[in-house]
């Protein structure tokens, strides 16, 4: 039996509703309707149970969390329960006074995602006119005493403007900048062919980030992780299955990660029926990939298995059809060709926006 760790973070997808239509959205293709969402009192109970279980950080996300009218009550309840609250938002639906009320209620950290440096390009990726609003929102955040991260979501369609994007993000005044390569789940997987960066872009990205880190040292922290499609080894997805994190979807299902819903054999328990403690400790889904029993070769005898746990189970399933396979992102994986075949060395012809046809994330009511 694997040692049971205590969760440190809870990702609360409080709604799937969102006014944006980002092509890289990691929400599932089948989103949850508003009428199925958990009620305020359910979340209040969850936050208390989560804290008792050991959770320190709460990440309120969605969809757009501000689409819920009770966001302030939720933040207050989380704060009272003793959780550190992070809000991951597009800023849409939050004007200065509503944001101030959230900070008053105990919000600790705001994370704003940015799609590109210029308005047209950014709105094209978001499928909505959101960019100008985000600039105004950043201004409102700066007036308050709250930690502020700007998140640049990068992929082939904007990596050529990374320097401009960083310069733009600086003007928004965050404490920290996160450069997040798109991960291929949900809508992003549907749009993978249009989003996959080239190897040339990844290499440039690394040197641009290094230069920016030097230039901005002491002023703004910059974090960037190499996308696993171009790395040698996979990431320790979510810090290992059922080891550090849990995610609750808008309808109350508890999952070990964002994408776990794609694995057909797994049955997820719901907070409406079970305590969070039971689900973490006892549920079949959380125990499915704990420890090493489930692993195949080469992971089973690989030295790195205690660091990356064989990579992402959802990616393994999505690409190979086998949920216990070595993550194909790993260079040692027998199915690594599934990833290398997607890699692009470089693109000589710069794509025009009109050349790209992709699926915008759908609307859910």
């Amino acid at each position, binding site marked *: 039996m694997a040692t049971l760790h205590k969760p440190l973070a809870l990702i609360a997808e409080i709604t799937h509703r969102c006014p944006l239509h980002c092509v890289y959205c990691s929400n599932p293709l089948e989103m949850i309707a508003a009428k199925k969402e958990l009620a305020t009192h359910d979340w209040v109970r969850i936050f208390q149970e989560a804290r008792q279980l050991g959770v*320190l950080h709460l990440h309120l996300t969605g969809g757009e969390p501000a689409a819920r009218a009770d966001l302030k009550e939720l933040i207050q309840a989380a704060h009272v329960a003793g959780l550190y609250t992070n809000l991951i938002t597009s800023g849409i639906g939050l004007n200065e006074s509503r944001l101030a009320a959230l900070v008053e209620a105990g919000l600790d950290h705001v994370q704003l995602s940015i799609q590109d440096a210029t308005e047209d390009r950014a709105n094209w990726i978001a499928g909505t006119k959101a960019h100008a609003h985000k600039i105004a929102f950043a201004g409102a955040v700066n007036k308050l005493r709250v930690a502020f991260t700007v998140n640049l979501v990068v992929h082939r369609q904007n990596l050529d403007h990374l320097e401009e994007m960083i310069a733009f993000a600086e003007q928004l005044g965050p*404490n920290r900048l996160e450069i997040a390569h798109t991960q291929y789940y949900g809508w992003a997987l549907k749009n993978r062919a249009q989003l996959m960066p080239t190897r040339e872009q990844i290499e440039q990205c690394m040197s641009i980030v290094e230069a920016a880190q030097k230039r901005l040292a*002491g002023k703004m922290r910059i974090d960037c992780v190499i996308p696993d499609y171009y790395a040698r080894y996979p990431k320790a997805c979510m810090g290992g299955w059922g080891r550090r994190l849990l995610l609750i979807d808008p309808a109350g299902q508890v999952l070990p990660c964002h994408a776990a819903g794609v694995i057909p054999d797994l049955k997820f328990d719901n907070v409406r029926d079970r305590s969070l403690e039971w689900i973490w400790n006892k549920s079949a889904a959380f125990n499915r990939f704990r420890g090493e029993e489930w692993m195949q070769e080469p992971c089973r005898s690989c030295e790195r298995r205690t660091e990356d746990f064989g990579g992402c189970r959802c990616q393994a399933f999505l690409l190979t059809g086998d949920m216990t396979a070595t993550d194909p992102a790993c260079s040692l994986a027998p199915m690594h060709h599934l990833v290398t075949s997607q890699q692009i060395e470089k693109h000589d012809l710069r794509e025009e926006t009109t050349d790209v046809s992709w699926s915008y994330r759908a609307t859910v009511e």
Partner: protein
Amino acid sequence: MPRPSDSSRPRFAAGCRWGSHGEDRVVLFPEGMIRVEATGLSILELVDGQRDVAHIISTLAERYPKADPTKIREDVLSFLEKLHDKRVVDF
């Protein structure tokens, strides 16, 4: 890497605050938490945006009369510098 001066008034950076993890006192910040123990804890408990560095050093020197004052000074300065680097403390 800036060092605080005697007159700097260190305080927690925006988004950094105390929390507890089991028996341990921790500082929570957006990307995670750090455990603070022993010397670090006694320094950080004096960080409130009001006291300046000289005050923090003299308070600790009074509290630990047997410790070498130069060492206390060095501990305080390097600890605050380290936390500033992690963006936990501003001064």
